[in-house]
């Protein structure tokens, strides 16, 4: 009998171009996504060395990180404008397809890849962005790379990679009502820490993962990097196939059915061995809120903010102390009593149609708290349109939310969407690092439902007490 293999090993083996003992493998790349912030120096490098883009047809560019989300026709920020224009010129010069700021396909790179069907099971996918792990939801091996590597992939369509170790994160049982994929991944990082995945590619398995929609799976895989992992993926199944059916870059008819069988055959074999396995029970997980300055610093919404004394070591204590100081929190206070001034629903973690819909379900018939400024930033132009067709924009607007154009926006605040110093934001994004949403800004990561509930109440609240419709 054939040795059982993990999906990771199967994809890897199909992409090795060159192998030499004791060295990293040269791996072929099927899809290279490009954005304006991490690519200019790469194209510049090509130009200096008189090199071409080897496979423009396997490369796709968009503008997301610093695009404004209102008044798109006049970009006031000269430096941002230069960066966007540079991408445009580079794409023209090197023949790379580009969805620029006004293009109907424009959006956050990790939202549009799946949306267009560019992201497919079994592909190797890279992008100069750490959240490339998002595409792993489809059973693709997808990881973030630096700008030098972007240049390398542009020039050679390959990358040097040491074969990663595999880590099985097994989620047993079912998530409770009102507990989302975001809560799940935060709870995983909270339990195992922000570096438990370092050196590994994670495969998420177990009943709760199988039950997730593709949107939920993307949310989980998206934050793999927050656990230190290079990539995170989920074996393809019928959910994967159905999501991709009919998308622009996948074949139709019989060709699709045949491909679908190939995709499903990539799933990890029964009995395959991982280098490491950790387990967590889905039923134990509550809605989560981060209290500190990395995504591992998270607690259930019913819990109290930790105190310095809760630290296990001197370094730990020091870290808690610094985080409490930065966040302006008292150790021991209930997280649910913490008042917020901003709500951001968006980012590659939680800005898909399903995310917006669930947040809208909470918001419907309520109004944003008078002390709160809340914005919704759809992940792509097409998500925005879909939401508008479904009347979701109206629900948000009537509740007092601002309804914006697609982009990364307040996830990293490179455009004008900034949280002011010392103010607090309930955010559906993925990083609560110091200064991430603005210098001195205080970020609390939550699910879209929890963000919506916080917008209405003006402080964190267990969304399950508001009578949430059941979904994952």
């Amino acid at each position: 009998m054939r040795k059982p293999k993990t999906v990771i090993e199967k994809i890897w083996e199909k992409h090795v171009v060159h192998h030499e003992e004791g060295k990293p493998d040269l791996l072929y790349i099927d899809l290279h996504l490009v954005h304006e912030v991490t690519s200019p120096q790469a194209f510049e490098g090509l130009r200096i060395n008189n090199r071409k883009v080897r496979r423009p047809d396997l490369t796709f560019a968009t503008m997301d990180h610093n695009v404004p989300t209102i008044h798109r026709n006049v970009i006031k920020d000269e430096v941002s404008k230069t960066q966007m224009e540079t991408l445009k010129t580079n794409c023209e010069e090197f023949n790379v397809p580009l969805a620029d700021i006004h293009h109907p396909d424009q959006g956050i790179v990790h939202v549009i890849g799946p949306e267009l069907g560019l992201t497919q099971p079994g592909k190797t996918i890279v992008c100069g962005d750490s959240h490339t792990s998002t595409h792993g939801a489809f059973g693709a091996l997808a990881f973030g790379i630096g700008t030098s590597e972007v240049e390398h992939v542009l020039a050679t369509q390959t990358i040097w990679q040491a074969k990663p170790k595999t880590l099985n994160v097994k989620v047993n049982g079912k998530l409770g009502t009102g507990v989302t994929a975001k809560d799940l991944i935060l709870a995983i990082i909270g339990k195992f820490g922000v570096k438990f995945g370092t050196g590994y590619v994670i495969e998420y398995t177990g009943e709760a993962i199988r039950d997730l929609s593709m949107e939920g799976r993307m949310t989980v895989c998206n934050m793999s990097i927050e656990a230190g992992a290079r990539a995170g993926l989920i074996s393809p199944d019928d959910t994967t196939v159905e999501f991709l059916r009919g998308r622009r870059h996948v074949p139709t008819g019989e060709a699709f059915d045949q491909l679908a069988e190939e995709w499903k055959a990539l799933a990890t074999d029964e009995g395959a061995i991982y280098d490491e396995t950790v387990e967590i029970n889905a039923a134990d997980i509550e809605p989560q809120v981060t209290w500190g300055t990395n995504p591992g610093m998270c607690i259930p919404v019913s819990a109290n903010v930790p105190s310095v004394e809760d630290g296990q070591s001197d370094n730990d204590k020091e870290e808690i102390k610094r985080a409490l100081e930065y966040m302006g929190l008292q150790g021991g206070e209930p997280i649910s009593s913490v008042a917020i001034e901003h709500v951001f629903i968006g980012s590659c973690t939680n800005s898909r149609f399903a995310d917006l819909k669930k947040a809208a379900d909470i918001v419907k018939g309520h109004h944003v708290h008078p002390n709160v400024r809340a914005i919704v930033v759809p992940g792509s132009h097409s998500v925005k349109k879909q939401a508008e067709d479904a009347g979701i924009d109206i629900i948000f607007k009537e509740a007092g939310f601002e309804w914006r154009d697609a982009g990364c926006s307040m996830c990293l605040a490179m455009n004008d969407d900034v949280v002011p110093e010392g103010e607090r934001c309930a955010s559906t994004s993925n990083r609560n690092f110091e200064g991430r949403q603005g210098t001195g800004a205080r970020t609390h990561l939550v699910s879209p439902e929890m963000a919506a509930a916080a917008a209405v109440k003006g402080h964190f609240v267990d969304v399950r007490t508001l009578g949430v419709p059941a979904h994952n």
Partner: protein
Amino acid sequence: MEPIRKHTGLVYPLNRANVDTDQIIPKQFLKRISRQGFGQFVFYNWRFDSKGTLRDDFSLNQPKYEGTSILVAGENFGCGSSREHAPWALLDYGFRVVIAPSYADIFYNNCTKNGILPVILSDDEVQTLIKNAETEQYYLTVDLEAKKVYDNKGFEATFDLDSYKREMLLNGWDDIAVTLTHVDKIDQFEANRK
């Protein structure tokens, strides 16, 4: 990139774990389109107050660390965003070597593509170096050929680095040029897939 074989320099201790690349180079400086000039912004939010004045309560600003070229930090250094601007900023500021108990993968890789040597030492060794550098002006030598770190007072530690990265750093080679020596294999791979 500049080769690195043996480097002796003044150590700067940053006794923090999980230093993310948003701290190393905040996003407001990512809009430049060249690789140069990022050094002035390194650790910006720690080095400067909201008015843009140097803060004397952040140790890197102290005169005793002027001219430092070896950064020693806590575990999981360089986590978060993949921005290569982080190693560009460190390099441009003058750092040629980083020493920590562990790194985030992408940052680690990015260092080796830019001629910064990322050294992994044990927690205890890192703590010793941090203590030394906090108490006095402390110089270390890092020898990539011998894979050793030592001072002139008896500290000595060995480290590991995969042979490919080591070769690239020792020679200052351009990755792409090396890969293009395998271009026939890439052609072959593509041909087989059709």
